[in-house]
């Protein structure tokens, strides 16, 4: 692992360091957490089935643009924005509504200023830890080469904001089974989901910049004073951006798991509907 020493006694090479603490615990947890999520989300998206139960819709599948009503555990056709599953869909891909929409929240998280840190460190090894040798590369270009796309984060943000509304709509529907108001564990799970997502989305660095961060003077007129107020609120959320990111990530997967297990008949939902 460690290569030749140089002036100063620093060792060179991937993961080389004089640090004596367990610096690798953080990146390792990130690999497990993010890797686990990606594997599960991909698997769940490929299913194309068991994403709907009673009024509950898995957030991985929302919004439903097209529906294949023949899939087991599919939502009723009336829930689709554009009707039945299109015939042009290539047959080698499962007819999963998740494929049509997951790219948006995915892009938001992938270009997020927190997640960037997390995966640059734990997957790209640039660097794996502070004062720890990075994965050797010919010429480091940071976010000026291919990764210049990270600058599109704010566009992903616009979509992510739209998703909050969509998911709150799902949560609202989750309180009505066959037109009758009620509360089930699933309703609560689906209500917490967009709430955590909102906490994550509205603490976004790009959002913080757009609402007020771009101003140099907060007190110069009434509108900038208002924006300063919003900026301060966003700043509070921003401090916990990492925590919000993980909580919302975990919860969205949990929501899918919960709906899926209900739909598959493995679990029973506790609810007022009986």
């Amino acid at each position, binding site marked *: 692992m460690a290569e030749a020493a140089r002036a100063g006694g620093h060792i060179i090479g991937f993961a080389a360091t004089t*640090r004596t603490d367990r610096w690798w615990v953080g990146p390792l947890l990130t690999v497990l957490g993010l890797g686990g999520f990606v594997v599960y989300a991909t698997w769940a998206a490929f299913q194309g089935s068991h994403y709907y139960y009673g009024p509950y819709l898995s957030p991985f599948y929302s919004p439903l643009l097209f529906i294949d009503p023949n899939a087991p555990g599919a939502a009723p056709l009336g829930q689709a924005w554009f009707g039945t599953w299109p015939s042009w869909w290539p047959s080698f891909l499962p007819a999963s509504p998740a494929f049509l929409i997951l790219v948006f929240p995915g892009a938001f998280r992938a270009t997020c200023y927190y997640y*960037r840190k997390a995966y640059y460190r734990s997957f790209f090894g640039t660097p794996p830890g*502070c*004062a720890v*040798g990075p994965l050797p590369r010919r010429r480091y*270009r940071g*976010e000026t080469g291919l990764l210049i796309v990270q*600058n599109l984060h704010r566009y992903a943000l616009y979509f992510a904001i739209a998703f909050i509304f969509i998911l709150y709509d799902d949560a609202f529907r989750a309180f009505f089974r066959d037109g009758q108001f009620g509360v089930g564990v699933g309703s609560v799970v689906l209500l917490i989901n967009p709430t955590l997502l909102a906490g994550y989305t509205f603490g976004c660095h790009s959002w913080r910049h*757009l609402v007020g961060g771009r101003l140099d003077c907060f007190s110069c007129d009434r509108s900038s004073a208002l924006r300063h107020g919003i900026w301060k609120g966003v700043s509070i959320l921003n401090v916990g951006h990492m925590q919000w990111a993980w909580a919302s990530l975990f919860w969205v997967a949990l929501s899918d798991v919960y709906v899926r297990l209900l739909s598959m008949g493995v679990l029973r939902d506790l609810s007022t509907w009986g």
Partner: protein
Amino acid sequence: MSERLFRIWRGTAAGGSFVEYRVDVDPGMVVLDVLHRIQARLANDLAIRWNCKAGKCGSCSMEINGRPRLACMTRMNQFGGAEMIAVQPMKTFPVVKDLVTDVSWNYEQNRRIPPFRPKPRPADGQYRMRQVDVDRVQEFRKCIECFLCQDVCHVLRDQSRKDAFVGPRLMIRLASLEMHPLDTEDRVPALREEFGSGLCNITRCCTEVCPEQIQITDNGIIPLKERVVDRYFDPLLGLVRKVFRRK
């Protein structure tokens, strides 16, 4: 009083090695105190750069057990009883001797930054800024120029891209000027082209080592990157600006 084992890198740019010292440590001591004791008793010519001994001047930057730190703010009681303590010079800068490095590169970068250009004074001669307007800039101006952030930044430390990126310290300096309510200079193009805002991949080590707890990444570099996005990557905002004819 207890005896501790120190491993200190001794040498010059031409080469050197770790040398071990056994030294008595009193309660309440910081690493710099121990180094001074070693200097006074065991190694008279040990080179250390230090000044205030209170975390205010940012001179005694070095790497203690592999972590970039101020020696004057690293208390001995945070180390386990039998733990050996390794002390090295900063990696990012050329070694002068022992624990002292040549940090002149940072001063050279500072010279490249377009200076403060204030608005003209109002008629009564008094500039007016609200505390809310200066809070943000004041955070950046807490910087004590210890250059630990420069040391830990992998772009400078490991990737040898001093040619393309000025490093977190200078990004913070740029932020303190760009967000200054009185400043009229536009540094956004230079931020991208000359100072390399795109080279930073926001892995936040700079923030982790900052002894002044400046939120270098969240409050400094990311907002600067967003200003670059405003200018170069956001046609929508450009259009809005055109329509409403405002900056």
